[in-house]
């Protein structure tokens, strides 16, 4: 066990945990941040995505010790139902989910994309999200939501 300092959604947090624990479980179980989800634990689906120092990262595969003192943003850090981020607002407006389990991955990877490329083409969006799995088939609405958020 070790005390580890994290900067999550702009706040400093200290957790006492096994440093090899994947960041995902610390965010969810220690800090109560349910945005990132467990999907595969293998970096294959994108459900657990968080943004670390500006990059979309699969939190199921990053040890919490490697996230120390880096800027971590989770879905909760973007906005809330009461005060949604414009990307979240666009997803609401387009009703861009069914079960919604993949939405953390969709929105966080899009956020990372838009921070670097504010006006991506449809092909660029599709490429950026190609590794984010959705089983319900909300892809086309997700595309529309992103296009709505970037006009």
């Amino acid at each position, binding site marked *: *066990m070790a005390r580890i300092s994290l900067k999550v959604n702009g706040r400093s947090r200290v957790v006492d*945990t*096994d440093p*090899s*624990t*994947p960041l995902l*479980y610390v965010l*969810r*179980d220690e800090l109560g*941040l*349910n*945005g*990132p*989800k*467990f*999907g*595969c*634990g*293998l970096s*294959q*689906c994108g*459900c657990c995505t968080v943004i670390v120092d500006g990059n979309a990262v699969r939190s199921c595969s990053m040890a919490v010790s490697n996230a120390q003192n880096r800027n971590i943003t*989770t*879905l*909760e850090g*973007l*906005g*809330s*139902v009461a005060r*949604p981020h414009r990307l*979240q607002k666009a*997803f*609401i407006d387009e*009703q861009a*989910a*069914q*079960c*919604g*389990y*993949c*939405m*953390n991955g969709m*929105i966080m990877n899009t956020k990372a994309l838009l921070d670097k490329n504010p006006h991506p083409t449809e092909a660029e*969006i*599709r*490429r950026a*999200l*190609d*590794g*984010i*799995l*959705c*089983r*319900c*088939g*909300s*892809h*086309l*609405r997700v595309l529309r939501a992103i296009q709505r958020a970037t006009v």
Partner: protein
Amino acid sequence: MAAREVSRRGFLKTTGGLVVSFSFSGPVSRLLAQSSDLTGVEPEATQLDSWLAVAPNGGVTVFTSKVELGTGIETALAQIVADELDVPFQKIQMDWGDTAKSVDQGMTVASRTLERAGPQLRQAAAAARQQLLKLAAARLEVPGERLTVRDGVVSVTGNEGKKVSYGELIGGKRFNLKITATGEGWDMKVAPEARAKDPKDYKIVGTSVPRIDLPPKFTGEYTYIQDVRVPGMLHGRVVRPPVVNSKPASIDESSIRHISGVVKLVQQENFLGVVAETEWAAIQAARALKVTWSPPAEKLPANKDELDAYLKNTKSVIDMNPVKKGNVEEALSRATRTFQATYRWPFQLHGMLGPSCAVADVLADRATIWTGTQAPFMTRDKLATLLGIPKKNVRVIHKEAAGCYGRLEPDDVPEDAALMSRAVGRPVRVQWMREDEHGWSPKGPPHLISVRAGVDTQGKVIAWDYLDRSFPWTDARGVLLASRQVGLKPTDPGFPNGATSAGEVYQFENQKIAAQNLPWQTAGPIPLRTCNLRSPGQPARCFASEGFIDEVASALGIDAVQFRLRYIGENKRLREVLVAAAQKAGWKDRPSPAPASAGPKLLGRGVAITDRAGAMVAVVAEVEVDKPTGKVAVKRITVAHDCGRIVNPDGVRMQIDGNVIQGVSRTLLEEVQFDAISVKSLDWKSYPILTFQEIPAIESVLINRPEMEALGAGEPSIVPVPAAIANAVFDATGVRFREVPLTPQRVLSTLKGAGALSRA
């Protein structure tokens, strides 16, 4: 706009009208702690109070055992109740899937919730509205005929100042009204004596009300089953055998002693799990635990050829003969042309994106279980059997899982959690790892389908002989995984895998349709266990029936749409969707295959239709086949869809998108890999699904039938997708594909085999 929950008992106990509501965004533990004292049998269906409650502020809580699976059913059912009661949509709160608070309306399966639970809740609402009007008439001292209701306020017609709200009339109090309820589950008829509105007067039904559940799903504020935490909760992981029907012969407990936080190794008969203080400790322990497993007690078919032989040669245990008309053999013997083909469909996965998860709190004589089940009452009954405690002492509370498409009718994981919770005497949350879900979730069964047809001298189809050989659902309603591991035995061969979408929509003089399910049930657990997968069996059967009808049309040189129209008969709604899809897709009347084109890319179009339990769907697929690689790209799918009265048009479109994309994925990519003793598809690399760059354009035409009852849209439109795609690939290449998935390797080798690569 977070979902809220009303504690029924807290609410009903107080006459002063205390309605306790919680925000889901607050600590879940508080919510759960408040309500977990509720056990006992479900409410009486014949009490109106069992179905809904009105709060002093006019809010209406609807109690239902139908659960949200990500299809928007919560919203659609709320629309129906709001309209019938004349209250604003925002006033409705759905409290679903709690066996202590809802009447058993049957499972949320088969795309039948709007069709069956819709009228149940509508009638309960109509009974409530009638009673409220009666109360208002007494309060306002006018005859009931002079009253009108708007937004939950009853007023005197022509004297609108004289009014009283629902909240004032009954808020926080019981109706104490007996209603009629006959039959069981989704067949239950609720309050038929209540007069419901004329559908012409609907204001909310038929509109695209935004989904209640979506905003918090975009912000992390929604509580999925994976997010449920209760005080004192530990984390469990299962340790399943690596091979078919195997037992732990010996276990080396010292292999996990070095992992701090491990609470207990749980073994009951052949069931094995580890419980730890943290998820990570449980995961590490489950991985590190050294177990010597017994050799597999039985073997699966070792490969596809053996499976094929098994499907072909095994005597059936379930026989379905839905159509037997005329004399097929006689007609075939006098036919001038006969056709015969065999179609194949592989084992496929539901592929829940979030694996199974549940939290169980088991005490000596009672249990509370939170889980994503599609069937809260069936899950409760199975848990009672497994734990050996009375049903009335088991409470199952549904929380939404990842989209499951039938997989959570047999909800395995609450059994794992219950066994582990009982062993440690504390609440335990169990989440399956990806390899558990891919490896051990029940699979959609394979099919081997033989079809024959005969045509007379006039080119008329006079014979149709269709035989589907498949497996029953061994686990849908039967004994689940952990139960089998502790020694409970299945008592039947499984649930029949159905027999429709086999060409019964066509009026042929001589027609035989049969479906045979072969023995697949085993006493011990096998990873190729089976259950219902979205519109079960029908995508496969439609792939064969609509593929074969296409073969005949093509051989006779007749356009695929025109050929179908000849034989549809009196089914006007089916005719209408077919014409609508063809028009929308810009279908040109010509025989298939398409005229040969030069270049590496071949373009084709294909059509397929279904009458799926009364819902009509036609699908046109447009594909591009890359000759050098064999890669099939689906460019556009056009769907015409008639599911009776449309409750929420945007919701229907959403379901069509989902059905199409999942259908394309299952057609192009999906096949479970296995060998004689295990499943080999254990992650998304070994079982790929369709991703963003391959998602086709989708266009849908919705045909509304306000005069009909609503039918579900969660499944029908997946049915014709595989056939439409395969027919389009034939149109492009001139080569018929009778087996999915249409992977580049299969397409390339089939084209080579047919000598079709020189076609240019």
